């Protein structure tokens, strides 16, 4: 064995170790959450956790339904508000803007992803909450407020991945459509968007993952009432805020119930990620085929 070979195998071993340690950290976290969170779910009944409406940890009542519904509402709201803007932005930057403008705008949008979420939350509290309270009614801390702020927060994710999906299309699609006399908008609507669909869906699902997982900004602006909101102007609590809000004081069963919240959140996010992976691998196959 030459010294070069030995060095090669050393490098290989070091890299292998690094790869495994990253994966094992994830595995440890997963095992930990499930070990801490599942016993109480089975002891108290999974039904109570999933469908119970009463969250009174002091009395041993751990209904997570308001938080599950809250997370779903806020996330859907964020998608409803964020996705149309994001797609419009991605289409404009790839198809309509000059390359020079794109070179300026794209990094700026990606910078948006680097703003800490507490800043979004703070702006929400200072600007959006009073605006909604004074103009639409309710306390201002609401599903709507959280949806708007999260809608803005998912923009960079959805925009940059959609841009990648649109730019990855073969130029012949664009050229062919234009050559056949389609206008630019017709090209976008009938050829480009449908062809890039799976990439765009993946971008939306990743944005959704960000919205489901966001904690700090949501705690600051959603009002955190553990009840099912009957209107978009009522306060809401998400699964993530439930954990972050109460973890510092929780002990005993209360603490276990917060881990159970984590288990449910974990499952939701795993499902989202799997769907995103499936749709992007389908995209890979489509392009090859």
């Amino acid at each position: 064995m030459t010294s070069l070979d030995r060095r090669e195998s050393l490098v290989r071993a070091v890299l292998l170790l690094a790869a495994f340690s990253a994966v094992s950290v994830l595995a440890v976290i997963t095992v930990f959450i499930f070990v801490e969170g599942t016993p109480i779910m089975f002891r108290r009944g999974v039904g109570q956790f999933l469908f119970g409406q009463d969250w009174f940890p002091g009395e041993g009542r751990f209904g997570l339904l308001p938080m599950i519904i809250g997370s779903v509402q806020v996330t859907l709201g964020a998608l409803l508000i964020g996705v149309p803007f994001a797609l419009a932005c991605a289409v404009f930057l790839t198809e309509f803007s000059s390359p020079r403008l794109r070179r300026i705008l794209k990094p700026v949008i990606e910078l948006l992803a680097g703003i800490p979420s507490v800043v979004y939350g703070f702006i929400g509290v200072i600007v959006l909450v009073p605006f909604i309270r004074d103009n639409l009614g309710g306390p201002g801390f609401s599903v709507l407020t959280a949806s708007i702020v999260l809608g803005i927060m998912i923009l960079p994710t959805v925009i940059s991945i959609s841009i990648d999906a649109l730019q990855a299309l073969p130029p012949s699609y664009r050229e062919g459509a234009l050559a056949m006399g389609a206008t630019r908008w017709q090209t976008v609507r009938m050829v480009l968007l449908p062809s890039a669909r799976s990439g765009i869906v993946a971008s939306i699902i990743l944005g959704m993952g960000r919205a489901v997982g966001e904690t700090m900004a949501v705690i600051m602006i959603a009002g955190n009432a553990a009840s099912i909101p009957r209107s978009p102007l009522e306060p809401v609590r998400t699964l993530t805020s439930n954990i972050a809000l109460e973890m510092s004081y929780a002990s005993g069963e209360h603490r276990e119930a917060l881990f159970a919240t984590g288990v449910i959140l974990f499952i939701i996010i795993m499902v989202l990620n799997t769907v995103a992976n499936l749709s992007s691998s389908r995209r890979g196959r489509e392009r090859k085929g």
Partner: protein
Amino acid sequence: MRFDSTEAAGGLQLAALPALLAAAAVLLLSACSRGASSGELTVAGSTSIQPFCDRWAEVYMEDHAGCAVNVQGGGSSAGIQAARSGAAHIGMSSRPLKPEEEDLVEIVVARDGLAIIVHPENVLESLSLQEVRAVFEGSVRSWSVLGGPAKPVHVITREEGSGTRGAFQELVMGDSRIFRGAIVQDSNGTVREIVAGDPNAVGYISLGLVDDRVRALKLDGVEATEESIESGAYPLVRPFLFVAREAPRDRAGNFLDFVLSEEGQALIKKEGLIPVRRRTP
């Protein structure tokens, strides 16, 4: 086991003062001259007590250079846990100890009133305890029921497990629950911030943290002041506790002595708390 601050202070006065001072000086030197790591004192727990403890620590460290008092938040339960596990020398709790926590030593270091706060423009001056309970139960949803304008009541509460919420639950709510639709915030500061911005909001915070951006309601006509709390006329009072595994000695004991000293108590009185030395029997 209860370690009564007034008794301890009395004992101090009885003992030969010069000898004690010398002993304290020796203790202090031995505690604080052993380098940075041994000169550290960690106090952790209730976010209600934290700002006052910060103040104590600040002044204490001015006189005791080399002794670093490290004050951390985290909440009453976390503080009690930290004191038990030894992660902190002293835990701060703004709620009474639960039966299973009674093995720890508790020292009352101050008392605090709970203030029911509203926006300064709110027309109401005073509520009865029953009315406050009804508001937080969610059975009163409009200010008009209480004699105010026909506007919805926005109820702000603290999160489950918070010492302030625990005290409010015990002192005001009794067996009834704070209703689910109440907005939940995780600190005194954010509750105050919301009430300061929303003319229809009502919340409760530590009396010491009331400032001129919000107004504390009278309870049954009694204003929350030091006098009315000491006389017992204002009912919403809770103790601020230091807890530890055993009676604090060395660094922790020194700090505790300072906290309970006239100087220490004067500091928090200035910040709006009720000192313990002048406790009425």
